[in-house]
């Protein structure tokens, strides 16, 4: 298993630069997910690692070798495509064997590898079938099988689950995770779905406009987003964000937003920043219905309640900015109707610089 190392990777199409010098170190056996909105350069980055796109600038290493000018087939990587790219004229076994045959692998070895891989993926009974006769999930497995049989140093996944329906996607997500545990192959996975990123990744790379916004474990990104973009992208529903001005009070700093005061006990580092314009970020999950010692209170008027079952989403607003809270129902929603204030622990309140969008204060 090899690591993948990107140093100052740039991609240009003519005069248009779409990836602006990315640095990324992917350790052997790591599962890294590149996530971001469409057009953020994540697919292009993956395709540069695969060798399907030329690297305009910078250096790509897989293991020890510099790969910038190495043909895709010699990079020891395998890729799972969004539309699977299964050859419709070949059956499952031949689809998986395609690459091995091209590489003139001995026949008995091919047969053995296919058999093993089919067993791992539960495809043994389907080896004779054509892709057209398989379900979406089975096709997805064949596409992975085709990558696995090559025993590559790195797996590349290009939005492999986006063609599946929601239920299958959840199921296949778990399967990919299991497979990675079992095979331990370094994996780079591209998706625009932050839930997929959160569930699969050892580390997530959030990208926007051809730049890396933040790299970190799923929990790091969730708890400490580096900027408003990451804050808004990771988590569902996204983090509530609204503008506020910092003020000082006897009890500590206060964020003042359109008449709503939010106490920021404990965030002492902010003392002395009075008058600074900030963006306040509060995760819907961090909102509580009842006050505890030291919690900040946000008075609200309820707009709407969406019931999800064990949880409910309370839609309200701070000033004229929508604000969503995710609270537990304990099986009934009657008590939610009369809610007139929400509470949040001060350390859960994130502050971002209004101009740069970068996170302020607390943990780096």
């Amino acid at each position: 298993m090899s690591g993948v190392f990107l140093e100052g990777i740039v991609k240009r199409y003519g005069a248009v630069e779409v990836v602006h010098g990315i640095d990324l170190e992917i350790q052997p056996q790591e599962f890294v997910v590149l996530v971001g909105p469409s057009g953020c350069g994540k697919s292009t980055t993956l395709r540069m690692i695969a060798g399907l796109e030329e690297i305009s600038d910078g250096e790509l290493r897989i293991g020890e070798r510099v790969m910038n000018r190495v043909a895709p087939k010699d990079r020891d990587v395998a890729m799972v495509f969004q539309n699977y790219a299964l050859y419709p004229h070949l059956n499952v076994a031949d689809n998986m064997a395609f690459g091995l045959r091209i590489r003139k692998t001995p026949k008995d070895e091919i047969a053995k590898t296919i058999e093993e891989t089919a067993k791992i993926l539960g495809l043994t009974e389907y080896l004779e079938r054509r892709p057209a006769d398989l379900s979406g999930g089975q096709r997805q497995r064949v596409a992975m099988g085709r990558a696995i049989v090559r025993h590559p140093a790195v797996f590349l996944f290009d939005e492999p689950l986006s063609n599946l329906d929601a239920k299958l996607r959840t199921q296949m997500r778990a399967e990919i995770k299991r497979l990675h545990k079992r095979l331990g192959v370094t994996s780079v996975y591209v998706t625009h779905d932050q839930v997929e990123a959160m569930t699969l990744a050892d580390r997530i790379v959030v990208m926007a406009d051809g730049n890396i916004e933040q790299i970190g474990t799923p929990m790091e990104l969730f708890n400490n987003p580096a900027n408003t973009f990451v804050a808004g992208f990771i988590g569902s529903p996204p983090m509530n964000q609204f503008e506020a001005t910092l003020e000082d009070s006897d009890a500590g700093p206060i964020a003042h937003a359109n008449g709503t005061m939010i106490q920021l006990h404990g965030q002492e580092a902010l003392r002395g920043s009075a008058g600074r314009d900030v963006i306040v970020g509060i995760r819907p999950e961090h909102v509580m219905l009842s006050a505890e010692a030291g919690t900040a209170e946000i008075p609200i008027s309820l707009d709407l309640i969406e019931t999800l079952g064990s949880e409910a989403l309370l839609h309200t607003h701070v000033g004229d900015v929508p604000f969503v809270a995710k609270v537990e129902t304990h099986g009934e929603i009657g008590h939610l109707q009369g809610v007139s204030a929400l509470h949040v622990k001060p350390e859960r309140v994130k502050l971002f610089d209004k101009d740069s969008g970068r996170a302020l204060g607390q943990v780096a």
Partner: protein
Amino acid sequence: MRNMNLYSRGDKFFVYATMVLVGVFTISTLYPFIYIAAMSFSSGFAARAGTVVLAPIDLTLAAYERVMSEPAFWNSYRNTFIYTFGGTLTSLLLVIPGAYALSRPNLWGRRFWNLLVAFTMWFNAGMIPIWLNFRDLGLLDSYFGIIIGFALNAFNVILLRNFFESIPDSFQEAARMDGANEFQILWKVFVPLSKPALATITLFCIVARWNGFFWAMVLLTDEGKIPLQVYLRHTIAALSDDEEFSSTLLTAPYSVETVTAAIIVCSVIPVLMIYPFVQKYFNKGIMLGGVKE
């Protein structure tokens, strides 16, 4: 699905009127073939008297015996097979790799190469320079000249290129990552994926070759090399001019008309035999030809 039972009386009348009109057009399309077939099996006397209308009169195979007794007929038949088979094969060998290359985004100067091909659809040098070109290349009176000289046309190249372009990139990329080179990608991935388009082009080629007449007439003066269509033309012209033939006709069991009809039937039969296959594909082919650059 539309259902006649739900139609008003006026609509029903409209549909029946349409069916009658279509029937008339269809019969008028079919009738000449029936007429020629009937003619070919009729006696020369009946044909000359103009009594053949629908069915053979005085059923006889005399016209066919006369046609088939000519070695030149069989010779031209053989030539047509050579031109059709050789020509179609050559076309495919040139157009498949060529169209594949033109469809690749990583081909430098792709716009230029495509324009070079497409331009020939809009402008051609014309009959005389083309003929002189064949002469100067030493391809007059040559099997090879006919086979290679008409192997390609821009339409077929663009049709196949468009089909190749419609195949998702990921097939090509997956094969490339699997270690396939361009020839392997073409042969093992694109060709199997393009069967309908290739069948369409093959059938277009076969039909065009089988029916090819003008250039064969102009480029081939050696009677031994002419294809069936040219032989047919010569025979029809000769039969109507030939005084001696006309004078023997009074006693012969065939006439100019029956012999002509018999040759026509002989040369149409192969087309009718592949027609069902053609029909299956040309619908698609026409749509593929919604040529767009």
